C-alpha cells in the first residue's frame, strides 16, 4: 500500500496540481507500539522478559555474588535468609551464588550447542537437499539411524564414549540435535532449489556449490533459526539432565543439574532449598525458550 512520491515525466505535478493525502497514519510512539505488541503476544513477551532476566543474571551476576565454590561447613543447610537468598547447601556454599554462576554456564552451553548443531546440520542439510541423489540417500539413512535414539539417550551414549570434559558434552549434545537441523534445512532446500532464482544463480556463472551455499542456504535457514530457540531450551535441559546423572559435568562445578543432583536427597530431610531453586531455574529457563520458540513457529512458518 505504501509508495514513495516519485516524480515522473508528465505527472500531475507539472500542471501545478498537488495531490492531497488525508489519511496520514498516526505515528504511534515507540512505547505505545511496544505495549500493544506485548498485549497481542503475551506468552512471547513473558518469554522474552524471562530470557532477558536470565541473560542479565548470567552476564552480570557472577561478578556480584560470592564464590560458588567456597565452602563453609559451619553454615551448612541454612535456610533462605537475608544473607543467603537461596540458603546454603551441605557444604555451606551459597546456593544463590551457585545458581547464578550455573546460569552463565548452562545458558552459554545451551547456546553453543544449538549454534553448533545448527551450523553443522544446516550445511549438511542444504548439501543433501540441493544435490539430491546418492549423497541425499546416504545422509537421510544416517539421520534415520540417529533419530531412532531419543536425544537424551544418544547424548548419554556419546558422552560415555568420550572422555569427560565440557567440550565433549557440547559435542555430544550437539550431535544429538544435528539430525534435526539436517532435516529442517533439507526440507526447505528442496523447496528453494526449485525456485527460479536458483536457476538464475546457475546462469550467472555460479558453480553448483556456490549456488548451494551462497543462494540456497541463506534462504533455507528460516525454519532452522526459528527452531534454534527451542533447541537451546532442550539443550539446557539435556545438559542438566546428564549432569544430574553425574555424566558430563561433575560436582563441584556449579551447574543446575549438578545442584539438583546433589540436593535431591535433601528434600526428604527437609532442606528443600538446595534442589528446588536450581530446579526452578531450569524450568523457568526452558519455559522462556519455549514461549519464544513456539510463537515464532506459529507466526512465521
Amino acid at each position: 500500500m505504501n509508495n514513495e512520491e516519485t516524480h515522473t515525466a508528465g505527472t500531475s505535478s507539472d500542471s501545478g496540481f498537488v495531490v492531497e493525502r488525508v489519511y496520514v497514519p498516526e505515528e504511534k510512539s515507540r512505547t505505545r507500539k511496544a505495549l500493544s505488541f506485548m498485549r497481542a503476544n503475551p506468552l512471547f513477551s513473558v518469554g522474552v522478559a524471562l530470557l532477558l532476566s536470565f541473560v542479565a543474571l548470567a552476564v552480570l551476576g557472577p561478578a556480584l555474588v560470592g564464590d560458588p565454590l567456597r565452602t563453609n561447613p559451619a553454615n551448612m543447610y541454612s535456610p533462605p535468609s537475608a544473607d543467603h537468598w537461596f540458603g546454603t547447601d551441605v557444604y555451606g556454599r551459597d546456593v544463590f551464588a551457585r545458581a547464578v554462576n550455573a546460569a552463565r554456564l548452562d545458558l552459554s552451553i545451551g547456546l553453543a550447542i544449538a549454534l553448533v548443531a545448527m551450523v553443522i546440520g544446516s550445511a549438511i542439510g542444504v548439501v543433501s537437499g540441493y544435490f539430491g541423489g546418492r549423497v541425499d540417500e546416504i545422509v537421510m539413512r544416517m539421520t534415520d539411524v540417529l533419530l531412532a535414539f531419543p536425544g537424551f539417550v544418544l547424548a548419554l551414549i556419546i558422552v560415555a564414549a568420550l572422555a569427560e570434559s565440557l567440550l565433549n558434552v557440547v559435542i555430544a549434545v550437539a550431535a544429538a540435535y544435528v539430525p534435526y537441523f539436517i532435516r529442517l534445512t533439507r526440507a526447505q532446500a528442496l523447496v528453494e532449489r526449485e525456485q527460479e532464482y536458483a536457476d538464475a544463480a546457475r546462469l550467472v556463472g555460479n558453480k553448483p556449490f556456490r549456488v548451494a551455499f551462497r543462494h540456497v542456504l541463506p534462504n533455507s535457514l528460516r525454519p532452522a533459526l526459528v527452531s534454534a530457540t527451542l533447541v537451546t531450551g532442550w539443550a539446557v535441559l539435556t545438559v542438566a539432565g546428564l549432569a544430574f546423572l553425574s555424566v558430563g559435568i561433575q560436582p563441584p562445578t556449579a551447574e543446575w543439574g549438578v545442584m539438583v543432583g546433589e540436593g535431591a536427597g535433601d528434600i526428604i530431610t527437609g532442606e528443600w532449598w538446595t534442589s528446588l531453586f536450581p530446579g526452578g531455574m531450569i524450568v523457568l529457563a526452558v519455559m522462556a525458550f519455549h514461549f519464544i520458540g513456539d510463537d515464532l513457529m506459529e507466526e512465521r512458518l
Partner: protein
Amino acid sequence: MSLLEVEGLTVGLVGSPYPILREVSFSVEPGEILALVGESGSGKTMAALATMGLLPLGIEMTDGEARLEGQSMVDPEGRVTRTAAQISMIFQHPVGALNPTMRVGHQVGRVIQINQELGRTEALEAAVEMLGHVGIPGPERVARNFPHQLSGGMCQRIMIAMAVACRPRILIADEPTTALDVTVQAQIFDLIKSLASEIGCGVIFITHDLGAVAEMADRVAVMYGGQVMEESPVRELLADPRHPYTRYLLESITHEVDHRVEDIGVDFALRGCRFGHRCLSAHGKCNQFPPLLEISPDRSVSCFLQLEEPI
C-alpha cells in the same frame, strides 16, 4: 429496479482509515454480462466478495449495500442471507477451488442436495446430468474422479456446474480462465455465455483482460484503486473511452508505451480521486472524491473533467 444493485460499497481493513473499496456502485440486469475490469490491486475481486458477503477476516464493509431483486442480502444482524439459488461464484484456480478429498460428482451432488432438498441418489444423478450439460464427455465416469486427476479445463467446468446447478439469479465469475490455456478459455467463455442465456441469470465477469471483456461482456465497469472509474456498454467504452485511466489502459494495449515512465502503485491515502497522482489532466478539484456521474443514459464516469469539457 435492476436484478442486482450494488451501491456505495465501501470496504476497508478493520481499524484502518484507508478504504480498500470506495463507493463502488454498479448494477446487473437479467441476462446481462457485466465485466469488472482492472489491473491487480484495483479491488475488483474484493467488490465481488463484498457483494457475496464473503469478505475475509479483518476486512469489513463500512458502508453501502448490495440488493438482489430489491432485497438486501444481509440481515439486520449483519448475517449473510443469500443462498446458492440466488447468487453463486466461480474462482480463478479451478483445481484448488474444489475439495481434493471428495469425488467431483459428489461435490456437485452436495450442492444440489442442500439447495434443492433432493435425496442423495437423486442429487447424484442430477449432478451427472449437470456435468454432461457443461460439456464434459463421459460424465458418469468423470464424476467418480478426484479433482487432481482432471485437467484445469475440466475442473473449471465442474465448478461452473456446481455454480449453476441451482439456477442462480446472479453468477459471479472471478478470472475464471486466467489459469487456463487460451483454447480452453474460448470453450469456457462459450459455455458461460450459453448457460447464462439459458438460465437467464446476470453475470458479473471479473477480469484484467480487456480482450475478454470485448468477447464476453455487454457492459463494463473499469476499476482502479478501489474506485469505479467508468461504467458503460462495452462497444462505447472501446470506441470512446472517457476516463483518463480507461484511455491510459487502452493505449497501453494498442500502442507502444514509453518505457521510461516509472511504474507507480496505488496510493490508498489520497483524499480525492484515486487516479489523481498519475493523471495528466488532474487539477485542484480532483482532491475531492469524484462521484459516478451519468454522462448519458447508460454511461457514467467518475471524473470531474467530464463536467467541464465534454469531448
